[in-house]
């Protein structure tokens, strides 16, 4: 099987990361922000697995890191959604621009 070179994976991961960052920074909807975070995490996962495959495929350190990240991401999503639901209950919206009560 023809394996594309490492740069291809890294470029895809970088694109994915950039999209995620854009989503996190520019979306007003909290759920969209959370989705951006998922993208960033997954971009990192691609990097982890790619580097594992192209350096020493016999060792599974990169893979197991990716599995950890997925697990943490699931937990993070759960906590994040719970915060969003709490926000909604209090403000009747989830527009992050208007949620600035943590300043000062």
């Amino acid at each position, binding site marked *: 099987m023809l394996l594309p070179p490492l740069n291809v994976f890294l470029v895809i991961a970088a694109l994915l990361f950039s999209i995620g*960052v854009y989503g*996190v*920074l*520019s979306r007003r909807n909290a759920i969209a*922000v959370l989705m951006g975070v998922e993208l960033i995490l997954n971009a990192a996962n691609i990097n982890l697995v790619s580097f594992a495959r192209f350096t020493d495929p016999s060792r599974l350190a990169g893979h197991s890191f990716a599995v950890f990240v997925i697990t943490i991401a699931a937990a993070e999503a759960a906590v994040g959604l719970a915060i969003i639901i709490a926000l909604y209950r209090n403000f009747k919206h989830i527009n*992050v*621009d208007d*949620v*600035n*009560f*943590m*300043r*000062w």
Partner: protein
Amino acid sequence: MLAHLPNWAFLIPLFPLAAFALILALGRRAPGQGHWIAWTGVGSSFVLSILTVAASLGREVSADRNVVWAVLGDVPISVGFRIDGLACLMLIVVSTVALMVHIYSAGYMHGDPRYPRYFAYLSLFTAAMLGLVIANSLILLLVCWELVGLSSYLLIGFWFERPSAMRAAKKAFVVTRLGDMGFLFGTVLLFWYTHTFNLQQVFGKIGGELPMAVAGIAAVLLFCGAVGKSAQFPLHVWLPDAMEGPTPVSALIHAATMVAAGVYLVARTYPLFWPEGHYPPVIFHLFGAGITAPLVVATIGAVTALMAAMIGVVQNDIKRVLAYSTVSQLGYMVMGLGVGGYVAGMFHLFTHAFFKALLFLGAGSVIHGTGRQDIMQMGGLRRHMPATFVTFIVGTLALAGVFPFSGFWSKDEILADALHFHPAFFIVGVVGAFLTAFYMSRLCFLTFWGEPRDHEVHPHESPRVMTWPLWVLAALAAVAGFAGTPWTPWVHRLLAPGEHAPALHPMVAGLGSAAALAGILGGALVYYWRAVSPATLIRMAPWLYTALKNKLYIDEMLWAILVRPMFFASNTASWVDRWIVDGFVNAVGYLTVLFSRLQRLVDIWIVDGIVNAVGWVTKAAGDTIRLVQTGRVQNYLWIVFAGAALLMLIGTR
């Protein structure tokens, strides 16, 4: 058993003292009562005094007891009592007159709103006076001396609603205090040399540790106390004013006992004045002549005797005549002591106490019966007040020195001693005797004979409680002289056991009696037969009359010499205090305030300024920096990513 009785003599002053305390405690609850307590106290003292004297007869000293009162360094200060002849004589005089006056006072003071308090004061006085006569140390003497002064003050000012009584009380206290200063200095001087207050020990050191000249100076200082207390020239001015007190008080304190305390003091310290077996030491020189302590005493006494008798002639207030008479007679006693007549002076004190107390109580009875004190408003009282009249005449004859009444014997003895010392004193004595007889006959004729001059006066005889003491004292005034005649020299044996009794000096007795009779005749001539009118006498020497009427201007002189400089000194001291001492204090205050103001400015603008500046800078910084904190997570993330990008840029460079 009786022989040990004098050891209990210390109880004599304690009885009236207990009465004083008891009346003070009960007085308010028993208005109009209290005389029974006082009578019991003084009566007990009287009985014990008589028994003590009886037990002491034939012994020079029957008791001398001391207790250590305090220890100064290693010098014990002991106080105690001593029963000798002098104390015995004084015990008889004081307890007898005090008892009579206590009884009489119940009638005289009847109905007074402060009746119990009067008896309390009277008991206090009696206690202090009895303590004075048995004291054997100067310090106890001084304490009792001040206590009698205090009770005198309280009793002169007893009717303190009257401004004149109030002023008289103050005057008496302050004037006698002038003399007391001398007493205190004398006491200290003696203690300085002998380290003891006990009189017998002091006497024992004369010529040894206590040089003769120092003894003489101390004697003169002690005599200053006597001058104040016994109203001698020039401090006699308080006694006539002291007549503002109730009349029984005048009789007891200001005639018979307290004013005699000065004479008693001189007699008690007589060895200082005239050391036994020596001629008195010269203490200073005046115009080339050596002055001795007895000479000072005799001169003061003679001046007082003559001056007071002269002033007494022109007084119209019945009590003031008697007051000047008292001053004059005290002058006699002092002169007697000064000329070496130790027994004569004390003998005159003894007889004078009885007849002068009698005269004062008689005057009190007259005042009680008429409500007047001015003899010009009286007259014809002979018929209305027979008991007072008879007893008063007895007192007058005794005072004038008519044979055989008591005054004759004692005055005669003083005159004899004066002649022995220097004829000048004898002449003063005879002239004084003439004046005494004259003013007393004037007093009697104006009061008891003639017709009533004021028809609004309705005289009545005093109650029995007042006349009874008059009769007792009249009897004593008549016969007391027989205790010291040349044939029955009991007083001489009591006071000077070793010496032989004096013989009757025919010339002295003759001249003295002649002066007395001439005085009485002169008085009768002017005020009974009215052969010579008083106005004629005044016209003979108007300047003398004016001077005498103004009491020889001695009050004014004392005012100018003593009181004015005192005021000046006080005002100066007040000025110094107000402007210099207070000024300094105020200046310190002003400086402190000024400095504080400066400090306040420094505090507000510099210290507080720095603190505030720190706060302001912090706040300004916070205000600026907080703008970064928007509370929006996305802003923060922007910064995070921007930072990360920046770091990457720097890293890849």
